[in-house]
């Protein structure tokens, strides 16, 4: 049998404390985390452009979520609340521009046709990143939540803290700006 160390004792103490202050059990958290961690991490990376910062914000997002004293009416409500925390954290770290231009993701490909397809996809992503980089942080968040996460206007408005009525117009403008930037990117 493994010897119980001081670290183990401390760990037990910390978990006891956590059970009192966190809004869900560790088991429930694990399930929720498995469902949400990847989308949240991708969102944070895309919004901050910094892997390390995204990792820190991921930890902070879940910490704030666990300590939130909110009664969730549904799984969607819980997930939206998580993204709302992430969005607020991103907006608090607006100092950096959007993202580093990723290395062209043309990995080893089996043949020329696949290589051409991969190159085309990588070029499209690069154009998208460059265009998104030129948008305002709030516009990026709106577009991502609407068109990468599929959220409704109400959900996005709630997450970024604007009125639903204004949301439609703001999203429309952001989308038009992105499309225009993408077109300019193609031309250049």
């Amino acid at each position, binding site marked *: 049998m493994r010897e119980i160390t001081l670290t183990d004792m401390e*760990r037990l*103490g*910390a*978990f006891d*404390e*956590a059970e009192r*202050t*966190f809004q869900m059990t*560790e088991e429930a*958290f*694990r399930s929720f*985390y*498995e469902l949400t*961690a*990847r*989308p949240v*991490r*991708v969102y944070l*990376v*895309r919004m901050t452009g910094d892997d390390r910062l995204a*990792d820190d914000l*991921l*930890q902070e997002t*879940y*910490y704030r979520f*666990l*300590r939130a004293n909110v009664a969730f009416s549904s799984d969607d409500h819980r997930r939206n609340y998580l993204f709302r925390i992430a969005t607020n954290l991103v907006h608090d770290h607006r100092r950096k521009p959007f993202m580093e231009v990723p290395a062209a*993701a043309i990995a080893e490909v089996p043949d020329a046709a696949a290589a051409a397809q991969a190159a085309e*996809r990588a070029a*499209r*992503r690069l154009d*998208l*990143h460059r265009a998104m980089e030129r948008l305002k942080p709030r516009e990026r968040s709106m*577009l*991502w939540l*609407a*068109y*990468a*996460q*599929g959220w*409704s206007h109400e959900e996005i408005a709630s997450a970024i803290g604007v009125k639903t009525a204004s949301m*439609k*117009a703001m*999203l*429309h403008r952001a*989308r*038009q700006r*992105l*499309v225009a930037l*993408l077109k300019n990117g193609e031309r250049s």
Partner: protein
Amino acid sequence: MSAYDCPREQDVVNAVLGGRWPDRCDESLVAHAASCLSCREVAQVSMLLHEDVDHARIDVIVPAAGQIWWRAAVRARLESTHAAARPMTWMHGITGAIVIGAMLALVTAVWPMIPELMSTIRTIGKDYLPSSEVASALAGGLRQSLLIGSIAAVLLILTPLALYFVLSDD
């Protein structure tokens, strides 16, 4: 329908995010998008972002749930400890302030009595000591000792308090 959106936009987004766009979704939706500028833009943007998410998800590495939970638990514990210690720190501060105040009040009350005490000592000294010079020297010495004693007492109380506040984390 407002100038800003089309009621079928969400259907387009759902079809794209569900991987059904454009081949495996309602033909009428595809036909509608071909003639609706708003839906066409939505489809374009959504496809690009969806592709980006798909690509990013392949590479994304997230910490284990247990690690996130453990770190959060440790942090929660630390914050709880700090929160619990905060009233104690305030109590210590208030106690220190009361002690200093009481001491100052005592010194203020006693201070006017010192010359009187000195003259009493001098009078007694005249009766018992051989000369008035010796008596006044003794009184002067006593006054100096009292002053040094007061300063030492103040330092004895203030130094630990100052050290406590300087060295305490919170």
